[in-house]
């Protein structure tokens, strides 16, 4: 009998001919997640097993497995020979000792001499013998004993199913560049794209000395939390101070934010091409602030050719907050290091800026050299 973590995967089985590729990436991601913990990762038709780990590492393994995209569910259980004695020994370990329960058998090996029903009945009866305080309830039991009869004379025995992170293995859906601020939304946007299998890189814009170093450190913390899911381990930062000053001096005040966002997108696209990212990702949600109207999104999207993915576009703030809390970024996002960008905030930002007006105002600026100058300030912070 061997203690194992049983991992079932999510959508990979849908992927027909590409299945091998998805499974390879998935197992690499699992190995990456379990780095630093002694273990063996094994394939077993339609499942992965983590085995050969120290008892005290079990909880840590479970919490790391829970964060790997592509994991549909996982269980802590036992790998045993499929004879009755071994099944029963393991069943006793996962079974509740009182209350109601039910044995639920899945027979992967159809040649097994007993049917599922017979196994349920026989193991159930012996468990009641062992634990007299137990009673069977097949409709709404308080506890379960799952028997999973596999090929090769083996079986898996476990008592619970934990829901995994679902989604697709990170790395199977290309690479995106997340525009990450210190707020609540952008980390959630990054999480959602990673969940769909995307490798997510991070880019943060700051305006030091208008913004402070603590604000930047906060973004590093957020990226570090996200990296538990996304796998990336560095953050690019770019200063847009000079751009903001130029816009402030030369352009119509109500377009400050609109124009700045166009610069951010231009810079992001160039850096995306450098890092091999195939799209930009933002935390924009329709109508949330003045720059996140459809007109605002159109005007910023107009300066780039890469697709801009906005996974939160249809979400309410409340829905985003719920996710941020679940991911673990919320508490960091609400730390009070808001920037001094408000120096540049117009009293009445344009809510529906016209593209022709924007372009006219933008002609007052040397766009190309400002973009190049900003890219020159790029720093990469590893973590």
């Amino acid at each position: 009998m061997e203690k194992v973590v049983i991992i079932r995967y999510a959508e990979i089985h849908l992927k027909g001919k590409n299945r091998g590729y998805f499974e390879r990436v998935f197992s690499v991601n699992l190995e990456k997640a379990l780095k630093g913990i002694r273990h063996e990762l094994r394939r077993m038709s339609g499942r992965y097993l983590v085995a050969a780990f120290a008892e005290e590492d079990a909880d840590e393994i479970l919490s790391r497995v829970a964060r790997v995209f592509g994991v549909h569910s996982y269980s802590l259980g036992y790998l045993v020979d499929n004879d009755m004695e071994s099944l029963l020994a393991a069943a006793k370990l996962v079974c509740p000792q009182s209350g109601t329960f039910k044995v639920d058998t899945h027979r992967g090996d159809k040649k097994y001499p007993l049917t599922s029903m017979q196994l349920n009945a026989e193991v159930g009866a012996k468990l009641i013998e062992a634990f007299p305080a137990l009673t069977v309830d097949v409709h709404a039991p308080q506890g379960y004993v799952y028997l999973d009869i596999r090929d090769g004379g083996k079986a898996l025995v476990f008592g619970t199913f934990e829901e995994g992170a679902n989604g697709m293995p990170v790395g199977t859906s290309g690479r995106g560049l997340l525009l990450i601020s210190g707020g609540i939304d952008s980390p959630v946007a990054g999480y959602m794209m990673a969940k769909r299998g995307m490798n997510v890189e991070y880019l943060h814009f700051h305006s030091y000395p208008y913004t402070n170093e603590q604000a930047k450190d906060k973004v590093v913390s957020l990226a570090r939390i996200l990296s538990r899911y996304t796998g990336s381990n560095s953050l690019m930062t770019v200063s847009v101070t000079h751009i903001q000053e130029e816009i402030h001096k030369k352009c119509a005040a109500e377009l400050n934010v609109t124009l700045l966002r166009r610069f951010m997108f231009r810079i992001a696209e160039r850096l995306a091409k450098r890092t091999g990212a195939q799209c930009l990702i933002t935390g924009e949600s329709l109508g949330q602030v003045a720059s996140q109207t459809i007109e605002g999104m159109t005007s910023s999207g107009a300066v780039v050719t890469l697709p801009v993915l906005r996974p939160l576009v249809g979400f309410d703030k409340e829905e985003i907050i719920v996710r941020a809390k679940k991911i673990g970024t919320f508490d960091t996002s609400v730390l009070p290091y808001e920037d001094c960008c408000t120096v540049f905030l117009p009293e009445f930002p344009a809510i529906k800026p016209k593209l022709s007006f924007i372009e006219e105002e933008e002609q007052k600026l040397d766009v190309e050299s400002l973009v190049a100058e900003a890219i020159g300030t790029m720093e990469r912070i590893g973590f």
Partner: protein
Amino acid sequence: MIYLDNAATTRPLSGAVAEAERYLTEEYFNPSARYHGGAEVSRMLSRARDFLLRAVADPADFELIFTSCGTEADNQAIFSAARRGNAVTTAGEHAAVFESYKTLKNRGVEPRFAPIRADGSVDADALVSLVDEKTTLVSVVHVNNETGAVNDIAAIAKRVKAKNPRAVFLSDGVQAFGKLPFRLTKEIDFYAVSAHKIGGIKGTGALIRRKGCTVLAPYVIGGGQESGMRSGTENTFGIAAFFHAAEEKFSSLRVDGERLKGYREQLWEMLDHSIFTRISPENGSPYILTVSAKGLRGEILQRELWDRGVAVGTGSACSSKKPFSRVIEACGYGEDTLYGVIRMSFSPATTEQEIRNAAQTINACARERKENV
């Protein structure tokens, strides 16, 4: 680096660090230990206590309890003395007092805040008028940490006691101790001080209390150190450093004060008066000059100055909804002044050359900022 943020913290004196190191590496014994090493450390604590107390008070009437910081000293006095009724303080207090007062409501004590004047000093008449027969505690900061304004705590305490002799009087002396010449008078019950503002190290403070005032209750309970008023093994290395720093500061207190007052005025004269407005009063602490660059942001100026080798303080932090200082706001200034506040604070180690260079850099920085925004 020209360091002009000495009111936030000041560089520990090398002699103080050496003393701390001695009590960390050689004389590391527990002062409660009943062998020679312990007794020696215990004697050092007595000498330190005696010196620090004598520097500002008569040991016949006052005693000193070591704490972990000025904030702890303030808190212990406030939460011991504030009883049902009301407690009076000023709008110009340090957060250690101000925030503590705000929580008194939960204990059934009504906090009352007296207004301050434009320079940050308390309006004493208004304060005294808030005191009535139900007042259990009155707190007045000695030197306003944001403007440098000095409150005449002896006179104020006298007026408070004349109106209600039972009211306990506390003063936060963190920015005054080791910097201003003064003696505690018998109307002052508690006085809170800190080591790291005068060249000691962080994590060491003290509460001085008048012996006749019996309201003090311990906050930290345990082995009965500090006469049972503050248990926990004493921070011997911090106290040794505090002792050393105080010896040095008090020995040249008047000379340093005169010189720094000259520097403060020199710095003010050199600053571009078309940009900067002065907030600190001339009769305030020689250690603090607070000004405002109207229309600019103090915090931004502060970071730019740091990048050019000058460290200054600011009352503002862009973190809250009101990104400026509560105290300067209470002085009655409008938003354009509030945003632009920077505080230059000195130490006896500050040199005239530093003052001149700092003034030039501050002017240059502010002028450039004016052009950009």
